[in-house]
C-alpha cells in the first residue's frame, strides 16, 4: 500500500469520529478529536494494526489563547496520522490510552509532568524525568513557565533537600 | 637462649614473605601485560602493580556503615596470611619446600581456598547489594571448582602414592611431563586454577558490568591492597603447583621461571579468548564437565596403576 492508500484507510477507520480534518503535508492527515471520543478513535487503529503510536506531543497555545493541545502521532511507513485533542488550560484532562497501547505509559507520564494534563486512568502517575525535588504544580513546557537564570536555578526553585 | 633465625627468615624472606610478594607483583604485571598485548594494547609498566599496592596502602580506608569492623579489617589480613603460609609448602623457585609434612597438599589447597572464603565473607559482611551478590557468586564458584581442581591434583599424587607435595614433586622429576599422559588432568587443573583466581572468563563473581566489583566493592585502601596481594600470591602458588605436578617438576630456579611463565602465557591467552561465563554456566561447566573429566582421569590413573604395578 502506498502512502495515499494508507491515509485513506486511516480516515476510513476513524474519520467519522473526528470533528475536523486537515492535510498539512502530503503524507500527513490531522484529525481533530473531542477528548471524550479519543478512545473510540484509537481503538479501531489498534485493532486494525494501523501503524504504531510514534509519539504523543503536548502543545501549549499560550495563556491568551487558553488552550492546550495533545497530539497523538500514529505512523505507518511514510504516513502519519495525527489525532489532535484540544483542551482548556484550566484542569485539562484526557482519557488514558494505556488500556489500548500499554507502552504509551511513558508518553502520558511525560504529558502529565510537563504540561499538567491529567491522563484519566493511566496506570502510573509518578514523577518521570523531572528531579525528585521539582516543585509540584510547575510545568516547565507550558509557555508561562519562564526558565530562571541559570546560576541561581537550584535556589530559586526553593527545593533544596 | 639462642633464637633460631632460619624459620623466621624462611617465613619472612624466602620462600615466604617478601619473595612471594615480589613474585606475585611481577606475575600480575606479566599477566596484565600479556592480556593487554593479546588485546592489541600496550599494557602496564613493570612497576605498575607495585605502585598500585603502595598507593592503596597509603589511601584512606573507609569502613562503611553496616559492617562488623573487626571482620572488615581482619579478613584481608587472614586471607593474605593464609596464602603466604601456603607458600611454605610449595617448591618455590625449584628448591625444596621450606616445610614438608604428609598431607600438605590438602593443607595447601585449603589455604588457597581460604583466600576465596575470606573474600566471600568480606562481601557478605557489608550491607552493599553488589557485595552480597558478589559474595554469593564467589562462594558458589568456590564450591564448584574446588573439587575438580583437587581431583586433578590428586592424579599425580596417586601415582606417587603420597599426599605430600615434595614427594609427589620428586616422583615426577626427570620423568616424562605428566601433562602428556594426563592431558585431561592438566586441562582441568589449569581451568580450575583460573576459576580459583576468578580470572576471565570465570570472573562472574566480580563481573564489572553487573555487580561493579563484586565482594570487594566496598573495600578501599589497605583492605583492597591486601586482597589484591593475596590474589597475586595465589596466582604464583597455583601456577607453581600445577607446573610442579604436571610439567615435569621444577629442578632449578631457571626451570621454575621457564615453566611457570609458560603456564602464565597459556592462562593469559585463555583469559583473552572467551566471553565471561554466567555463574550458572560456570557451575554447570564444573559439575557436568570438569568434575566428570577429573574423575575419568582419576579412574584411568587408578586403573593404570593397578595394571602396571
Amino acid at each position: 500500500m502506498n502512502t495515499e492508500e494508507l491515509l485513506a484507510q486511516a480516515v476510513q477507520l476513524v474519520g467519522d469520529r473526528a470533528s475536523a480534518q486537515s492535510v498539512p503535508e502530503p503524507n500527513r492527515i490531522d484529525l481533530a478529536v473531542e477528548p471524550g471520543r479519543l478512545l473510540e478513535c484509537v481503538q479501531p487503529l489498534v485493532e486494525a494494526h494501523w501503524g504504531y503510536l510514534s509519539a504523543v506531543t503536548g502543545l501549549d497555545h499560550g495563556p491568551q489563547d487558553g488552550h492546550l493541545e495533545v497530539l497523538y502521532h500514529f505512523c505507518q511507513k511514510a504516513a502519519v496520522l495525527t489525532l489532535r485533542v484540544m483542551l482548556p488550560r484550566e484542569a485539562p484532562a484526557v482519557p488514558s490510552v494505556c488500556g489500548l497501547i500499554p507502552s504509551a505509559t511513558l508518553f502520558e507520564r511525560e504529558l502529565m509532568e510537563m504540561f499538567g494534563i491529567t491522563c484519566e486512568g493511566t496506570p502510573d502517575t509518578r514523577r518521570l524525568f523531572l528531579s525528585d525535588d521539582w516543585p509540584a504544580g510547575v510545568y516547565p513546557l507550558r509557555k508561562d513557565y519562564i526558565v530562571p537564570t541559570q546560576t541561581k536555578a537550584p535556589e530559586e526553585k526553593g527545593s533544596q533537600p | 637462649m639462642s633464637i633460631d633465625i632460619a624459620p623466621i627468615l624462611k617465613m619472612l624472606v624466602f620462600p615466604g614473605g617478601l619473595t612471594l610478594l615480589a613474585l606475585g607483583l611481577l606475575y600480575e604485571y606479566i599477566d596484565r601485560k600479556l592480556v593487554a598485548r593479546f588485546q592489541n594494547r600496550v599494557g602496564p609498566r613493570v612497576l605498575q602493580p607495585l605502585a598500585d599496592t603502595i598507593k592503596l596502602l597509603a589511601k584512606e580506608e573507609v569502613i562503611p556503615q553496616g559492617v562488623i569492623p573487626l571482620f572488615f579489617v581482619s579478613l584481608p589480613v587472614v586471607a593474605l596470611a593464609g596464602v603466604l603460609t601456603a607458600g611454605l609448602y610449595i617448591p618455590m623457585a625449584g628448591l625444596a619446600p621450606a616445610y614438608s609434612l604428609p598431607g600438605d597438599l590438602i593443607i595447601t589447597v585449603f589455604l588457597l581456598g581460604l583466600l576465596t572464603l575470606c573474600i566471600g565473607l568480606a562481601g557478605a559482611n557489608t550491607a552493599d547489594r553488589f557485595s552480597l551478590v558478589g559474595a554469593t557468586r564467589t562462594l558458589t564458584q568456590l564450591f564448584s571448582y574446588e573439587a575438580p581442581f583437587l581431583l586433578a591434583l590428586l592424579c599425580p599424587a596417586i601415582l606417587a602414592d603420597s599426599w605430600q607435595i615434595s614427594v609427589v614433586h620428586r616422583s615426577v622429576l626427570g620423568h616424562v611431563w605428566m601433562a602428556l599422559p594426563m592431558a585431561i588432568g592438566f586441562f582441568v587443573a589449569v581451568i580450575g586454577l583460573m576459576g580459583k583466581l576468578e580470572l576471565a572468563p570465570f570472573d562472574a563473581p566480580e563481573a564489572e558490568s553487573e555487580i561493579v566489583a563484586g565482594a570487594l566493592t566496598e573495600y578501599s585502601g589497605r583492605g583492597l591492597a591486601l586482597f589484591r596481594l593475596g590474589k597475586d600470591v595465589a596466582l604464583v602458588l597455583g601456577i607453581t603447583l600445577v607446573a610442579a605436578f604436571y610439567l615435569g617438576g621444577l629442578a632449578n630456579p631457571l626451570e621454575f621461571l621457564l615453566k611457570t611463565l609458560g603456564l602464565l602465557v597459556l592462562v593469559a591467552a585463555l583469559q583473552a579468548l572467551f566471553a565471561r561465563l554466567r555463574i550458572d554456566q560456570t557451575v554447570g561447566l564444573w559439575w557436568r564437565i570438569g568434575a566428570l573429566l577429573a574423575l575419568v582421569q582419576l579412574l584411568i590413573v587408578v586403573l593404570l596403576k593397578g595394571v602396571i604395578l
Partner: protein
Amino acid sequence: MSDVPAGLPKPWTKMLEALKSWSRIYSPWAIHFNSGSCNGCDIEILATLTPRYDVERFGIKLQGSPRHADVLICTGPVTLQARDRLRRVYDQMPDPKFVIAVGSCATSGGVFQGCYNVVGGIDQVIPVDAFVPGCPPRPEAIIDGVVKLLQSLKEKQVAEKTE
C-alpha cells in the same frame, strides 16, 4: 595508615612521602560519572581505554566502584536529578581524591546553559582540580588532562618541600 608515623627520623619520612607521591602519580585509578552529558565525552573517555590510546600504559584504570578510585572523571552539565548522586559518589571516594571535568558542559554548562533542569558546570557541586575543554575533547586531550593533574601534584609536593 595514610599518615606517616610521626616518630620516624626525618630522612625516612621524606622517603616515605616521596614513595607515596610516586605511587599516586604512577597509579591513578579513575571512575567515570555522567551527570547529564550527551554521550559525546563518554564515548571518548571509553575510547581512551582502547588499543589506540590505551591508558593502562600510564597506569590509569577505569574502576567501577567509587571506593577504589582516586580520580573522578565527570562529564556533562549537572542536572537537578544527578546533583545529589554526583555529590554522593564524590563523598564515597576515599581520600586523597581528585576531580576532572571533561568537556565544555562539565566546565561551564556549555550549550545547555539556561535549560531549566541544568545547574551548571561540575564546579557548582563539587571542587574540581582540572578542566578539559572541548566538545567533546579528543581522547588525547582527556589523557593530557589526567597527566597535567598528576604533574601538578608533583609540583605541589616540590613546592611544599622548598617551603
